[in-house]
């Protein structure tokens, strides 16, 4: 009876193990790399400033890689404000079209998506694809002078092929 239980356990583990081993051979593991920060530059208190995801000099740029035909979920952890070391914060907003996906990294194949909610896409290639992100900052009229910053995190999750 005890031997029977062990055999059942072993076979179950074998069943789980095989698809994983095959999946690992189909392409590189998911990877994401930050390439450029989102830079609003110099702002005036009381004057909102938007950086478009098409603004190559100031947008955020990250590149992602997975296997061809792999379906992945892209989700951002977006801050609601930027803060400065001395204290004080300014609101930061992301619109429904402030994120873009591009397989080539160029401008001709960009797909806009809402960075505020997880977004799913099936990769069409095994090389690097690109994510571009813009946003809007709204410093209040009496915002203290200084440099503000916040952290934006992009997470990739595999949804299978």
């Amino acid at each position, binding site marked *: 009876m005890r031997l029977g239980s062990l055999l059942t356990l072993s076979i179950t583990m074998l069943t789980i193990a095989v698809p994983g081993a095959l999946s690992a051979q189909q392409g590189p593991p998911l990877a994401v790399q930050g390439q450029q920060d989102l830079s609003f530059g110099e702002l005036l208190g009381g004057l909102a400033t938007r950086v478009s995801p098409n603004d190559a000099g100031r947008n955020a740029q990250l590149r992602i890689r997975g296997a061809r035909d792999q379906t992945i979920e892209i989700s951002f952890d977006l801050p609601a404000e930027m803060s400065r070391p001395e204290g004080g914060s300014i609101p930061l907003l992301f619109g429904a079209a402030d994120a873009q996906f591009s397989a080539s990294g160029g401008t001709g194949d960009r797909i806009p998506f809402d960075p505020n909610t997880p977004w799913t896409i099936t990769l069409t290639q095994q090389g690097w694809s690109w994510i571009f992100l813009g946003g809007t900052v709204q*410093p209040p009229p009496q915002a203290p002078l200084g440099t503000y910053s916040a952290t934006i995190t992009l997470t990739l999750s595999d949804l299978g092929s």
Partner: protein
Amino acid sequence: MKKLTMILALTAFLAIPAMVSAQGQGDAASISATATVIAQLEVSGEEDLRFGDVIPGIASTIAATDVGNAGRFQIQGGGNQEVSLSFDNLTELAATGGATLPFAFGSSSAGFGVSSGEADGTFDPLAGTDQRLDNGVLYVFVGGTVTPTAGQPAGSYEGQITLNVAYTGN
């Protein structure tokens, strides 16, 4: 029992890659969003434009580069931001009794510089120009020409010179 050991060993061997693969099925990276809030523009008139004594019938001109007599403004703002500069037109100076003295800007009657003691360049005050602040400061100089008539009443004349400054966003 030997058979059981082999099965377990095989299972363990196949399971390891699967576990490694499962750990590779996601990734995350972070970047920063950055911004610098800069000061609002402040413009102050530091020195008046002084023609001194003028003689009826003889025009008198003060150049923007004549820092001893030219008018001077100081602009304070943020960092190395670019600002637009232009003057409201002024056509005459007025005396207390109502007499007027013709005044005109020339095409190079305005100047700009990073120090209060020297104009680094000139521009047409009515056409305006865009210049960049130097560590938050820029000086603007202004001259012009008065043309008293032959019968110009004696007296003291004055007018208001207004400089308009705005961030260009560049």
